[in-house]
């Protein structure tokens, strides 16, 4: 590999050719502040926080995009540079709704942190016009407060570059520039698929999830209610970050303990219904293959992806698996099977779902997600809200013991837990489908080909005389690429897994926000996925069909996968949607 050697603040550093000054400085243990830069998706040099001096150049260079060169001498913290950065911050503050004490991002805000680091003394130094924008809380999952927006455009990059949607972008220009949708439509009327990737990358409190913490506390303390909680696989890979633990910390045991202490009547695990999903989905796939059904079949666990498909690829709705997502299946089972088993009136059950996902807040409200008029789920919290709940309840995370989930719906397998990483659903489905088709035990349950973070991963398996071709992708811009290839006949596959968020649920829009200065140098997707793969490996049961609780529910309640009752409870339908459809009306 070609390398170059340069000096940054007098420190000599050798880095690969093609590195930017920002990356080179990182190697030299120097942090250059950024606000707009997001590696690979938002390299626009707009915020001007990262300007540095390059010896011999009269102009300052934006370190985030300026290529490092051999022999270059860079100065990142001279008085001139620091003075400039202070002014940039002061200007941003002059145009920011400064309600830091009550802001949801307080303490975790990148702007606030930089202001502290740079010693901003007078937040009103450049006071002037500071327009107040109308808050957009039209969407099911989130709130946009443009008065706190610093126009870094990270949300736009997430929406446009990562997700290939672009339902938000800069409107107007100059001082009046603001991030909004086409014709300033309320977000709910756009083709927003609720993935929340914009929230995950926002440096301030300008975009945040709708908060249901108070409602859940109220339900818990309502003696007439039986409050159940389910928690998605990926939550355990991210939650500890809310308590300043390193990225990639396994929080499963403490998480269960915390839920119990919060007062939930039963602490269950979505991994159980992930296993249930596999039973239904593997069965559906085998059925489609054997009976000439529509192929390729595409997974339907990711509600952001489902809405994307309904909006942008409505012709592929028949390809979507009819299985509800694990969240939906869980609620349906809890209010039927569990209620019956425990002798509780399903109407008294409050089903709380803790998800790494904001689209789940949209999904649980979809009209299809009910059984005879009873909602499958009653509240959906993101990992972040869950973290806030634990703090508000005064629970000391560090001193929490590790506990287990309650039975029976807290029993999950390794196959179910890897749902939270891209490729996990496919791998879990393959484990079950292969054994079902061959009737023999797999010598190795690790399907490495479908793991990892490559944009599109394909594999072909010969199973009991059948050739099964699979493809896996995550991030909807990648999904577009994959679907277009399939539609153009360039790629022939039988089974596709799509996750809306890049890297899958571990990087979901409801996960703890990671500051860009970490995000740009650590692959949070990979670090969090490791937690799930380790849990899989450490689980004695690694195949969904071997989950005793799953066996029991089929034997005593559902019958068999794809049964009439299973269809009623566990399967759903889809709706064709138009791009920015409500506007067209």
């Amino acid at each position: 590999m070609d390398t170059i050697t340069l000096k940054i603040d007098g420190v000599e550093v050798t880095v690969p050719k093609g590195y930017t000054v920002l990356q080179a400085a990182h190697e030299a243990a120097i942090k250059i502040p950024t606000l707009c830069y997001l590696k690979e998706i938002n390299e626009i040099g707009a915020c001007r926080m990262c300007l540095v001096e390059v010896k011999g150049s009269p102009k300052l260079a934006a370190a985030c995009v300026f290529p490092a060169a051999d022999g270059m001498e860079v100065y990142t913290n001279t008085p001139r540079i620091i003075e400039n950065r202070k002014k940039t911050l002061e200007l941003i503050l002059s145009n920011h709704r400064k309600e830091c004490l009550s802001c949801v991002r307080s303490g975790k805000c990148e702007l606030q942190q930089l202001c502290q680091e740079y010693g901003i003394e007078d937040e009103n130094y450049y006071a002037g016009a500071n327009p107040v924008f109308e808050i957009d809380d039209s969407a099911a999952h989130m709130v946009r407060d443009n008065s706190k927006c610093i126009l870094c455009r990270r949300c736009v990059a997430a929406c446009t570059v990562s997700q290939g949607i672009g339902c938000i972008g800069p409107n107007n220009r100059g001082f009046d520039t603001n991030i909004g949708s086409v014709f300033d439509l309320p977000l709910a009327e756009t083709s927003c698929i609720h993935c929340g990737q914009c929230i995950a990358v926002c440096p301030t409190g300008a975009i945040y999830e709708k908060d249901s913490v108070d409602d859940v506390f109220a339900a818990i303390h309502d003696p007439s209610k039986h409050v159940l909680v389910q928690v998605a696989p990926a939550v355990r890979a991210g939650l500890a970050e809310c308590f300043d633990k390193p990225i990639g910390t396994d929080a499963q045991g403490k998480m269960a303990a915390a839920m119990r202490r919060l007062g939930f009547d039963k602490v269950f695990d979505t991994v159980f219904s992930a296993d249930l999903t596999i039973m239904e989905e593997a069965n559906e796939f085998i059925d489609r293959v054997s009976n000439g059904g529509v192929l390729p079949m595409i997974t339907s666990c990711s509600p952001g992806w489902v809405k994307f498909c309904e909006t942008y690829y409505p012709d592929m709705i028949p390809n979507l698996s009819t299985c509800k997502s694990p969240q939906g299946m869980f609620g349906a089972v809890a209010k039927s099977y569990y209620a019956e088993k425990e002798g509780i009136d399903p109407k008294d059950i409050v089903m709380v779902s803790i998800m790494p996902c904001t689209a789940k807040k949209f999904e649980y409200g979809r009209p299809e997600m009910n059984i005879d008029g009873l909602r499958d789920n009653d509240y959906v919290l993101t990992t972040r809200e869950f973290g806030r709940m634990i703090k508000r309840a005064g629970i000391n995370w560090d001193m929490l013991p590790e506990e287990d989930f309650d039975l029976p719906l807290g029993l999950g397998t390794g196959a179910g837990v890897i749902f939270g990483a891209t490729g996990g659903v496919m791998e879990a489905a393959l484990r079950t489908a292969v054994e079902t088709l061959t009737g023999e035990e797999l010598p190795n349950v690790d399907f490495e080909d479908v793991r990892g973070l490559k944009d599109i991963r394909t594999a072909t398996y010969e199973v009991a005389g059948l050739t099964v071709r699979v493809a896996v992708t995550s991030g909807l811009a990648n999904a577009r690429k994959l679907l277009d290839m399939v539609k153009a006949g360039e790629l022939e596959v039988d089974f596709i897994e799509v996750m809306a968020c890049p890297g899958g649920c571990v990087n979901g829009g409801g996960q703890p926000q990671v500051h860009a200065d970490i995000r740009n140098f650590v692959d949070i997707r990979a670090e969090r996925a490791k937690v799930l793969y380790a849990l899989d490996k450490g689980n004695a049961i690694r195949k969904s069909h071997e989950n005793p609780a799953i066996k029991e529910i089929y034997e005593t309640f559902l019958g068999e996968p794809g049964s009439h009752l299973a269809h009623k409870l566990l399967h759903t339908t889809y709706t064709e949607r138009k791009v920015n459809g409500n506007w067209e009306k």
Partner: protein
Amino acid sequence: MIRSHVMICGGSGCTASGSKALQEAMEKELVAKDLQDEVKVVQTGCFGLCELGPIMVVYPGDVFYSRVTVDDIPEIVEEHLLKGRIVDRLVHEDEVLKEQVTSLNDTSFYQVQKRVALKNCGLIDPESIDEYLAMDGYVALQKVLQEMTPDDVIQVMLDSGLRGRGGAGFPTGLKWKFAKGYDAPQKFVCCNADEGDPGAFMDRSILEGDPHVVLEAMTIAGYAIGANQGYIYVRAEYPIAVQRLKIALDQAHEYGLLGKNIMETGFDFDIDIRLGAGAFVCGEETALMTSIEGNRGEPRPRPPFPAEKGLFQSPSILNNVETWANIPQIIINGPEWFAAMGTEKSKGTKVFALGGKIKHTGLVEIPMGTTLRTVIEEVGGGIPNGKKFKAAQTGGPSGGCIPASHIDVQMDYEHLAEIGSIMGSGGLIVMDEDNCMVDIAKFFLKFTVDESCGKCTPCRIGTRRMLEILDRITEGKGTMEDIDKLEELAYYIKENALCGLGQTAPNPVLSTIRFFRDEYIAHIQDKKCPAGVCTALLSYVIDPEKCIGCTMCQRNCPADAISVTDYVAEGHKKPSLAIDTDKCIKCGACMNNCKFGAISKQ
């Protein structure tokens, strides 16, 4: 057989003053007099003297008629075209020479000029490729394709010393050389016709008057750098220019001067037009390219420079219309010919759009290095109404003000930069003693604030904060610290903004503080606008000794701010009136209506 040509200006300026109707009337009158086979009416591009429009020139004889109306047509036909007698009353009275000048070339306006980029403007019919050919059009292209290698062409450009006329003055040959140096399957040649400085219309006039010169030059550049596709980015507010470009493109295609296998040399080149929506920032090269790509027009950080990764991430060059207009002549006449004009580092000529407090507003082309004094006093005919010259503004919102003390500055890249201004694209706005320099700074800054794309923090918020400070000062609410804050922000924005437009946005403020600090101080400390422009600092006052009590002012006051007092001046019969400054909206109606000079603004 045609014996006479009547040239009627079809540029935007004269079109606005009615040249289209003039042309129709002329054609009708010629038919009525049965002269249609002897006299040809030619619609031309801009002559430059827009202030005297609509302009008509009759050949032979090169007789120049100014401010012609439809009513003048029968007389011109009867007298001049039929009988050969010049219609004296329509002949221009030269302000500088103090005499009637029949030929346009003899006017003081034209005498100092050296027309290179504007060579064909006003002389040919821009909608006729044949006339362009007759003016040695496409000779340069033929020479390049048949006799020169791409490196030869670049060497000629380097030797000529031609620098970009869009504002920054980057050497054109060097730009081409860089682009040629990158290997790529696709390269692009772009023309910047997104002229956006307030008051500037050089590029529009060239496109309207001589569109083929741009097509020819772009094709030459395509050959030099190895590109087969060009784009002209022109603002949609230039409908005449767009129309003529479209006609020119069609003609060039028809003649095989664009498209495949040009002049049977195997070289392919084509050009498309892209319409801009008129955003100032789209004149910035990376923003222009982003806009052509179909995105929101915003600048991109450099590097990578467009020569490496420009339009659609391919090596690209972008030159401004006026730059292009010089190129065929450099090829034909040689680089030495071009380098012989101008100064040591600024070669050739520069077109300026003269505007403001000057008698001859219009378009002028002068050798680089001509002094500002020559431009104002000779070409421009001086300041009207006997007022004193105060300052000239060059470079539009990116430029600065040149005070009267520097009136002998040479107009070239270096000398203008030395005194804190820039050449810019060629806007030249003249100001007299009635102009308030704080107000001027505010005007230009307001423009930048309005036109900022909003991408980078310094420009988006910083320029707005500067404007707010200027607003305070012109309202008499400023403090002396505000001047420091202005300078502090100005230097910060220059250093930190993303693109050239942001980096130069503070220039009008900095240069007015530099040369007219006393005016800022007068606004702040004395709460006075010395030029009497800033309305918030003005008050209208009635002199009770002069007021005869006619109440004319009172009757014309829209704000009901004037009332009768009980003071009767000596010798007057009626009591005088007085203005209630709290109610006064400073519209000036009272002063305009006072026949006795009793009202003044202070």
